[in-house]
């Protein structure tokens, strides 16, 4: 079965410092991987995805993610964190069981950026 794991419940970063939010995956076949962000009392918003090609994927709000096949990881990164980046981040993998597109989400990582 497809799955993703987010090993950190919370990540704390000082504003201006680089941030990394970790995600590892377990899939059969080629993975389709995603990052979503959830701000308080809102629905999830798409940030970026990896399907194929360049291992470094760029997305919204200055975020990027690095796909590493040998380590089965898809970590989310940003060179310089902003206080406004504080939110809940979810990694997800596409599941095609039954022939139809679904996303399986990780448990989420809360990012807190301190001034």
């Amino acid at each position, binding site marked *: 079965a497809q799955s993703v794991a*987010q090993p950190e*419940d919370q990540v704390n970063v000082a504003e201006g410092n680089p941030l990394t939010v970790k995600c590892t995956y377990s899939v059969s076949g080629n993975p*389709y991987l*995603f990052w*979503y962000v959830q701000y308080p*009392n*809102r*629905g*999830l*918003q*798409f940030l970026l*995805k990896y*399907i194929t090609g360049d291992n470094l994927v760029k997305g919204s709000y200055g975020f990027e993610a690095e796909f590493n096949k040998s380590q089965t990881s898809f970590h989310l990164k940003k060179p310089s964190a902003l206080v406004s980046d504080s939110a809940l981040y*979810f990694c997800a993998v*596409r599941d095609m069981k*039954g022939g*139809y*597109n*679904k*996303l*399986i*989400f*990780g*448990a*989420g990582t809360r990012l807190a950026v301190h001034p």
Partner: protein
Amino acid sequence: NAGVTQTPKFRVLKTGQSMTLLCAQDMNHEYMYWYRQDPGMGLRLIHYSVGEGTTAKGEVPDGYNVSRLKKQNFLLGLESAAPSQTSVYFCASSGTSGRVGELFFGEGSRLTVL
């Protein structure tokens, strides 16, 4: 540009009561989904639909029913609510081409079962 709209946003039920959550999307998407979000567990898929008149079970379908009578609407029903169904429910939709795997979410419906 409404996107995905969920109603109601908040609801309190007593154990055994029934209710329906409505999801509407205006993007002409084929796929629609219902997820529940619980602390420390992320989002879990309840049911989904790949087109008008079709539904399928997700990871945690027990205690829920769904219907997709119109392409733009996806209803989630609880026939006999239980405290374990206290959660935040999210509806999402996606297209079948182009932006593969990108889901558009509603703002959630917070349900409390006493």
